[in-house]
Structures are given as structure tokens and as C-alpha cells.
């Protein structure tokens, strides 16, 4: 039942009861001889009986309404505050506080504080879980790439090597006589070499060699030296010696590997120039090839995985990456990383 109605009803009931009891007591104390006079009794112009019936009704009604309003205000205030708690908002306090509610409000505050702590806890756990998921996902990706690289190396690379050996055997023992077959065999040989080249680039991409405690300069020189032996491309480099923060070293090295892998796979370049220098407290890594180039904008809109990956690496160490590529003339990649404290210059 509605609070107001209930209050009014109860108040009227009590009022009637009280009146009936008082009247009863009066009648017993002063018994009425003649009942007809009782019915004729009048206060002013109003019959006494009507007063006995209507006064308590009126009094009960007035008391009921006022008490109902009084409590409803307080109940509503509590309800509003609880709504705020449920919604997780800051509790909006009324201007006029009700002393009866002081204790309840205090408890509501406590409940809210408890909820806040729990929410915080849950959120922290969720963040941790998300981070962990990401970490394990990355781990899986690395493992899977390693596995792929190993399998490719164990199968396709070996078979290509075997095929190239067979080609060499044919060329040395039994060189073809006809010009047509000679040309075809030359093409086969070229295809095998191209495939080997792409395999190497792919493996470099799939399983980047970590620096393993070497300085970036040593790592770069080793990698480029190895490539010089393995790929038919003129590779030049200019590497200055200076201290680089460990995290920056790793990312720059990966960017280099990625870039070289891209050049080997897509650029059809005959020359590769790599430069690592320090100018004005900025580390500059520049990788230039004379390959076929590509449309930077188009590749960007295609959101090429390799490029965005390199870009992310650059950003991760507070650097910037810039691509300039002219179709038919080559590609130039420049990464600039500001050098900030913490590194000894001696």
C-alpha cells in the first residue's frame, strides 16, 4: 500500500479508537439517563454526535498526511542516495539534512566506499588479465614464427640448396649444347637463386636475430657482413660508434632487419646503403636502396603490417619514422630517435 494512504489510514484508526475509548469512559463515569437528550446535544449548531465522529476523522487525517509527508521525504532521500550508489555516482546530499538519517547515511557511505574498493580491485585484475593475454599472445606469435622459420629452413631451404647443387653439377659436367635449352636452364638457375634469396629474407623476417648483448653497431656490422656474403647485392654501410640505450638498440636493430627483409623480398634492388649516425643528440638510422620503390600512400592505406610494425617500434622508443619512395628509383627509410640522458658519453 502507498505510504501516504497507509499513514492516513493508521492515524485515523488510532484517532477513532482513542475517541471511542474516551467517549466510552466518559459515558461510564457520567451515565446518560435519557439517550434522546444525548442525540440532541449540540455544541453551537453542530450535533455532539457528529463532533465525536468527525473530529477524530479530521485529526487522524491531518496527522496522517503530515507524518506521511515527513517520512516520505526521508525515505526518498535514502532512496536517492541508494540510486546513486547503484549507479556508481557520487552521492548527492540534500541541502537540508535529516538528523534521523545521519546513521543511515553514514552506512550508505561505507557501502559505497566498499563498492569503490571492490571495483578498483576488479578493474586492476581485468587490466592484469588483459596484459597477460597480450603477453602470452605475443609469446605464441614469436614461438609460431620461430617454428615456421625452423621448418622452412629445414625443408625448403635445404631443397633449394640441393637444387642449386644439381644445377652446378649439370653446368660443370654436362653443359647443355643447344641455345634454347641453355637459356631455359639459365632461367631455372636464376629462379632457384631468387627463391633462395627470398627464403633468406623471409627467415630474417620471421626469426630476427636478437642482439644478445652485442652493441647495435656490432650487430649491424655482423648482419650486413653476413648478407654481403649471401645475397647478390652491393651493401655499403657507415656506422658510427656511440652509446645507445639498450631498449633503443633492440628496436633499431629490429627495424633494420625488417627493412632489409623488405628490400630483399620486394625491392629488386642492386644496392643497399645503411647508415647509423648521431647528430645533435639524435640517433639517425637511414636505410636506402635503389629498388623499384613503392607507393607510400597506397601502402599506408593498405595498412601494411610490416610498415606499421616498424613505425610502432620507432614510436615505442620516442622516435619518428619517415619513408620516401620513388617508384623506379628506390626507397629511403629514416628513423630518428632523440638521445635522452642516462647514457654515458665516454
Amino acid at each position, binding site marked *: 500500500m502507498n505510504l501516504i494512504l497507509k499513514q492516513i489510514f493508521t492515524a485515523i484508526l488510532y484517532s477513532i479508537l482513542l475517541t471511542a475509548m474516551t467517549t466510552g469512559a466518559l459515558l461510564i463515569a457520567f451515565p446518560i439517563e435519557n439517550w434522546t437528550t444525548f442525540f440532541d446535544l449540540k455544541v453551537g449548531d453542530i450535533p455532539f454526535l457528529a463532533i465525536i465522529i468527525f473530529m477524530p476523522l479530521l485529526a487522524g487525517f491531518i496527522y496522517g498526511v503530515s507524518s506521511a509527508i515527513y517520512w516520505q521525504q526521508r525515505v526518498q532521500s535514502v532512496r536517492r542516495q541508494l540510486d546513486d550508489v547503484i549507479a556508481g555516482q557520487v552521492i548527492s546530499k540534500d541541502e537540508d539534512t535529516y538528523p534521523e538519517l545521519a546513521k543511515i547515511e553514514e552506512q550508505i557511505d561505507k557501502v559505497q566506499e566498499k563498492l569503490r574498493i571492490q571495483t578498483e580491485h576488479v578493474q586492476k585484475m581485468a587490466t592484469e588479465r588483459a596484459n597477460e593475454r597480450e603477453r602470452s599472445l605475443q609469446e605464441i606469435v614469436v614461438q609460431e614464427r620461430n617454428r615456421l622459420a625452423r621448418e622452412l629452413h629445414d625443408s625448403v631451404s635445404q631443397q633449394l640448396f*640441393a*637444387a642449386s647443387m644439381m644445377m652446378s653439377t649439370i653446368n*660443370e659436367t654436362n653443359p647443355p649444347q643447344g641455345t634454347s635449352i641453355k637459356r631455359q636452364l639459365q632461367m631455372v638457375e636464376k629462379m632457384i637463386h631468387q627463391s633462395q634469396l627470398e627464403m633468406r629474407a623471409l627467415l630474417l623476417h620471421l626469426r630476427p636475430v636478437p642482439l644478445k648483448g652485442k652493441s647495435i653497431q656490432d650487430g649491424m656490422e655482423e648482419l650486413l657482413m653476413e648478407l654481403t656474403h649471401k645475397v647478390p647485392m652491393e651493401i655499403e654501410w657507415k656506422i658510427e660508434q656511440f652509446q645507445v640505450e639498450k631498449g633503443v638498440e633492440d628496436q633499431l636493430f629490429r627495424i633494420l632487419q625488417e627493412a632489409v627483409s623488405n628490400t630483399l623480398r620486394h625491392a629488386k634492388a642492386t644496392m643497399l646503403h645503411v647508415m647509423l649516425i648521431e647528430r645533435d643528440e639524435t640517433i639517425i638510422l637511414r636505410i636506402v636502396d635503389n629498388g623499384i620503390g613503392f607507393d607510400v600512400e597506397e601502402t599506408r592505406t593498405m595498412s601494411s603490417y610490416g610498415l606499421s610494425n616498424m613505425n610502432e617500434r620507432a614510436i615505442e622508443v620516442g622516435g619518428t619514422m619517415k619513408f620516401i619512395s620513388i617508384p623506379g628509383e628506390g626507397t629511403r627509410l629514416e628513423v630518428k630517435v632523440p638521445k635522452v640522458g642516462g647514457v654515458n658519453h665516454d
Partner: protein
Amino acid sequence: MIKVLFADDHEMVRIGVTSYLSAQPDMEVIAEADDGGAAVDLALSLRPDIILMDLVMKEMDGIEATRNIMAKWPEAKIIIVTSFLDDERYIRLWKLGLPVIC
């Protein structure tokens, strides 16, 4: 004639390399092994002039086989063949003083 023993666990690589080596007028592949253990047995029984040894093989790898051969036949001439440049094993080979062809 230079007698060669070739150990590699890839059949196709064995075919390719053997055909190439056999094509040389002064070389002859007298045996092939697909595992380090077989390479040790063949090396000790046939005593080839040179042994070409793959680094990574399943049962017994090239390093283990090389060590076993050299323990019983220190004069053996062994060339390790590998395509793993970044491999830790490669460095261990260097430390053994073995020539490596990549």
C-alpha cells in the same frame, strides 16, 4: 682421388651435394650418412680423406659426431657444413678449432 664421406640428414641435400662432388674429376663420395652415429661408424671403418659433416642432425648432431671421430682418430679431416649462422653451436665449433663453411 679424394675420398669423401658426406653426412647430412636431408636426402635431397645428399643427392645434390654428392652429385656435385662426384662430378669433380678428383673427388669421389665413398659413403653417405644420414645421422651422426652412422657418420662415426663409416668414418672409422672407411677412413675417408675428408668428412663433410652437417651440423644439425636428428639423433647425433655434427658436433657430437665430430668429437667421437676425433677421439678415436685425431687426424681425421672434418669440415662442418651449416647454414645456421646465428647458432650457438657455431660458436662452440669455432672454439673447437674446426673450419666452418656457411
